C-alpha cells in the first residue's frame, strides 16, 4: 500500500560549534508508511526530529516534503506544511484544559480574524464552533473526552502522552512524528498505544515516523527501520533485516542480545 514518496532527506546534518550532532542523514518515506527510527542514547534521533521540524536549521543537506524544500522554515511553517510532532519530554499547555490543548493545534485550520473575535462577528462564532466540534472529535477518538475540562497538567501520565498525540493530530498532519511515545508507560499502556497508533494511521491515512526505545514496539509495528549511531545512519531496512544486521547488533542491539542470552 506504500504510495508515492512523501519525505526525502538527503545528506542532512547539523553542527553545533565543532561538534557534528548528525551528519549524512538520508531517509525516504513513502505515503502511508510507518517507519521506526532507533539508535542508542545520544545517537542523534531527537536532533534529526528537530532538523525535520525546523527547530534547528540543517547546516548541510536537503529536506523536502511533498516536493517542497523545508530547509530554513520555522517550526510553525513546517507544521502548516503537514508535519506535526510530539515531544520526548511531554510539552503540553499545562494550565489550559484538555479541550483547549487540542483547539490550539487546530488554530491554523480556523480562519476567523482577530478583528472578528474582538467585535464578536458571526465569523468568530462559526469558527470557534467548528474548532470546538473538531477538537471534541479528536478527544473522543482518544477517549479523552471525559477529561475535556480538566487542566492538562492534572491528567495521569499515560493520558498526557495520549493527549499530546491527539493534539499533534489536530494540527492536520500528513506526516506524524512521535518522539518516544511509549516512554514511561507500562506494558499494558504500551500495548494500547500500539493499537491506537495503528488505528489512527488507518483512520487519518497518515504516514508515521517514530522514535522508540521499546524494541518490541518498534519491531512489532514498523514496516521499515532506520538506525542511527553517533549521528550517522548505519542501517535501514525491514525489522527482520535490522534484527540480523551485524552493524546494528554491534552498535545497539549487541548489549541486549548478550543480556538476552545471559
Amino acid at each position: 500500500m506504500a504510495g508515492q514518496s512523501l519525505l526525502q532527506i538527503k545528506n542532512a546534518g547539523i553542527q553545533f560549534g565543532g561538534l557534528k550532532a548528525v551528519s549524512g542523514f538520508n531517509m525516504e518515506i513513502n505515503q502511508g508508511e510507518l517507519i521506526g527510527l532507533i539508535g542508542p542514547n545520544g545517537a542523534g534521533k531527537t536532533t534529526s526530529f528537530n532538523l525535520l521540524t525546523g527547530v534547528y536549521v540543517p547546516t548541510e543537506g536537503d529536506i523536502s516534503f511533498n516536493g517542497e524544500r523545508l530547509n530554513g522554515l520555522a517550526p510553525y511553517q513546517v507544521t502548516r506544511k503537514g508535519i506535526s510532532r510530539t515531544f520526548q519530554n511531554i510539552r503540553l499547555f499545562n494550565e489550559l484544559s484538555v479541550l483547549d490543548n487540542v483547539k490550539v493545534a487546530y488554530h491554523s485550520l480556523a480562519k476567523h480574524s482577530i478583528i472578528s473575535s474582538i467585535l464578536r462577528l458571526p465569523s468568530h462564532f462559526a469558527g470557534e464552533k467548528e474548532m470546538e466540534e473538531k477538537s471534541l472529535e479528536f478527544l473522543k477518538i482518544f477517549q479523552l473526552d471525559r477529561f475535556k475540562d480538566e487542566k492538562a497538567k492534572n491528567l495521569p501520565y499515560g493520558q498526557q502522552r495520549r493527549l499530546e498525540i491527539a493534539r499533534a493530530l489536530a494540527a492536520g498532519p500528513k506526516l506524524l512524528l512521535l518522539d518516544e511515545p511509549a516512554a514511561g508507560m507500562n506494558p499494558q499502556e504500551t500495548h494500547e498505544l500500539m493499537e491506537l497508533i495503528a488505528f489512527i494511521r488507518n483512520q487519518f491515512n497518515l504516514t508515521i515516523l517514530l522514535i522508540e526505545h521499546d524494541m518490541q514496539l518498534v519491531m512489532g509495528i514498523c514496516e521499515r527501520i532506520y538506525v542511527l549511531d553517533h549521528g550517522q545512519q548505519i542501517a535501514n531496512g525491514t525489522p527482520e533485516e535490522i534484527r540480523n544486521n551485524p552493524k546494528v547488533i554491534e552498535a545497539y542491539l549487541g548489549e541486549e542480545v548478550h543480556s538476552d542470552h545471559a
Partner: protein
Amino acid sequence: MEWLQQIINGISLGSIYALIALGYTMVYGIIKLINFAHGDVFMVGAFVGFYAITGFGLGFFPALILSMVICAIFGVLIERIAYKPLRNATRIAALITAIGMSLLIEYGVIYVRGAQPEAYPNVLPNTTINVFGAQISSQSLFILGISVALMIILQFIVHKTKIGKAMRAVSHDMDAARLMGINVDNTISATFAIGSGLAGAAGVIFGVYYTKIEPLMGVIPGLKAFVAAVLGGIGIIPGAMVGGLLLGVIESIVSAAGFSLWRDAAAFVILILILIFRPSGIFGKNTREKV
C-alpha cells in the same frame, strides 16, 4: 586635548560602573538573578561612607573598608531574607522580588533620613595634573587606581582561593557542586558578600568623586552597571570590567560631542542593540534551549 580629558573622565566613571557591574554579573552568574537591589546597596555604601567620615571622623580608607564590610553584610541579609526562599521559584518571581527589595531599600532610607541630598566631605587631596595639555585631576587617577586594585583582588579571590573555586563550581552547575560537597548556600552568600562589598566601595568612591549623594542615587548607576554587565557578557567577571569602562567612555564621548541630554539614552540604546544582536555580550557564548 579636551577629548583626552573626557576619556579620562569616562574611564573614572566607567571604573565605578565596573565595580557595580561586578556584583551584578557575579550574582547573575551564580543564581541567574538580576539583582535590582544591587544599585541600592551602592547607595547604602555611599551613605555609610558619608556617616563614617562626617560622624566618626574616619579617613578615606577606613571609611571605604567600613562601607565595604557593612555592605557585604547587608547584601548577605538581602539574599538570605528575600532571595533564598525563592531559589526554586521562577526567574520572573525572583526578578519581581528584586524590584521589590530595591524599592524597599530606597524608600526605607528616605523614610529613615529623608530624601534630601548630602554633600560629600572632601577627604582626598585634589590637584590637577597637566598631561599633554589635558587637565587631569589626581582624584580621577586615584579612583581608577583603587578600582583596578579591587578588581585585581577579586580576580585573585575568584581564581586562587577555595571560595572562588566553589563560586565557579556553583555557577557552572549548582547540583553537581552540591554533590561534590560544596556548601551551595554559603557559596551564594559569599558571592553576595563580595559583590555587595564592591558596590559599597563604588558608593564611597562615587561620593568622593561626584560629591553629591541622595537616596535614589543608586537607580541610574545601578541600571547602567547592569548594562555594562550585559555588554561584557553577563556572568563573566572580566566582561563586567571591560563593559563598565567601555560604557563610561561611550557616555563621556556622547556628552563631549554635545549631546549631554542624551547621555542616559546612550546606555539603553547600547543595551538594546547588544540584547538584540549579541545577547551573550562581548565575551559570552551563545546557548540554546534544549528541545
